[in-house]
């Protein structure tokens, strides 16, 4: 059956909001790459001087995009000079101030944040496309319940890392719930692994997996390149 006008309306609003975030992330990733290439001059690996200016770039991103709680770049270890920083990440604090977030990046340490194995990094690295990972509990990272948008960047044709942002689930809710509440039946935004990002009722709760097979459950794929999002709804 064809989706109702209200479903189409909600899908369009969600698509447009998410594509807005994607465009911002593409831009951030491009700016990071440009900045690195300019700073590197003849050097092949990222070192301290190559990172100059990323700070201002990211702060500017966070100031403009208030939906994001954190942003920055994670580098592929191979692309970085031994002993240099591999993560440049800033987050918005309770007070509203933007500060650098430090992670434990010592392999073997109890609180080691092995980001290269996390899907927001590894998927972007293998596919070369933007990814959306979450909702997930970012243990050892930002330590909250978040969504991460990440886009890979290359330096002189070689993959060098991902740039992206975190959106707290509780911050996302007021931004997109009004769109979902425009649908009178039960509806939810779900990610590529069929996990609910946000639902408009108690039927679909954030974090739950939607089991396929219910006959009155419909799906509308959102036109958000590579992110694999859809809108599901009952009739």
């Amino acid at each position, binding site marked *: 059956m064809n989706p109702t006008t209200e479903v189409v309306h909600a899908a369009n609003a969600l698509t447009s909001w998410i594509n807005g975030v994607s465009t911002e992330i593409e831009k951030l990733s491009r700016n990071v790459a440009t900045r690195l290439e300019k700073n590197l001059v003849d050097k092949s690996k990222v070192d301290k001087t190559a990172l100059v200016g990323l700070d201002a770039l990211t702060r500017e991103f966070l100031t403009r995009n208030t939906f994001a709680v954190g942003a920055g770049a994670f580098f592929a270890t191979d692309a970085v000079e031994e002993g240099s920083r591999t993560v440049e990440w800033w987050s918005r*604090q309770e007070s509203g101030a933007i500060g650098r977030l*430090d*992670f*434990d990046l010592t392999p073997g340490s109890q609180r080691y944040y092995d980001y290269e194995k996390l899907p927001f990094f590894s998927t972007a690295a293998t596919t070369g496309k933007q990814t959306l990972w979450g*909702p997930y509990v970012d243990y050892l990272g930002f330590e909250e319940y978040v969504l991460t948008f990440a886009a890979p960047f290359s330096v002189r044709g070689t993959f060098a890392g991902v740039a992206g942002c975190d959106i707290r689930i509780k911050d996302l*809710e007021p931004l997109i719930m*009004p769109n979902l*509440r425009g649908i009178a039946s039960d509806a939810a935004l779900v990610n590529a692994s069929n996990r609910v990002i946000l639902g408009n009722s108690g039927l679909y*709760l954030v974090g739950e997996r939607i089991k396929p097979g219910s006959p009155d459950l419909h799906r509308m794929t959102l036109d958000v390149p590579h992110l694999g999002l859809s809108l599901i709804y009952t009739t």
Partner: protein
Amino acid sequence: MASPTSFEPQIYRPLPEIERADAIVDRITTAIALGLLKVGERLPPEAALSDMFGVGGATLREALGELRERGVVETRRGRSGGTFVVNQPRPQPTTIRDWFLSTSVSEIRDIGDEHSAISATTVRLACERAEAHDVDRLQELARALVLATTPEERAPADSRFHIELAVSAQSPRLTDAEIRLQEETVQQLWTPLPVPFDPESATAEHLELVRAVAQDQPEKAQKLVLEHIRRNIFHLIDAKLTLGYAQSVHDGQ
């Protein structure tokens, strides 16, 4: 590389200026709201209270003064005098509304997840460990909920039942966890804002739970308690959605 962890700002942030008198007011108000202190009950003498709270006489008197002003306690003179609990503290509707507006659906779902974990084990242990007199008491507490006539009385009746269930499971830690979870949500559940919660079905569920405990049926008891919590959480989420996001059905324009 010995990098600092991301927790540093959390651990070393400035300590809040806790007003000790306010803390005492909160402690006693919450205890009454949860049914741990009952209307008519006499508080210990002032000297004993300052001792137990570890505060000076002036601070304690300030706290009692505040509680008297709120109409929660009354101090009577004379031989049978002392400070008595005289009223259920009335939850401020604005406080409850603020809670709904500032708590996201994901956080409410997460409270439910924790509550499910705690209650599932609590009720299984209660099946193993409760004695006949525990069962009688739980039954009486379950009935108290349907006998309560106002939302202010329903909240403590409901939380008391769940706390005593943990007591009958013989676990101080599970009891503490249950008290903390009750403090977090029981007022929100029973304040009719915007939709009242039905005490009859909650009572029926409590009674069925007591029966499963009495008959030592852990599987059934666990299933019942999980359904019970799920229904509570759905009610809270519904209230959140109604208060926070009025349904805006489009007219197809």
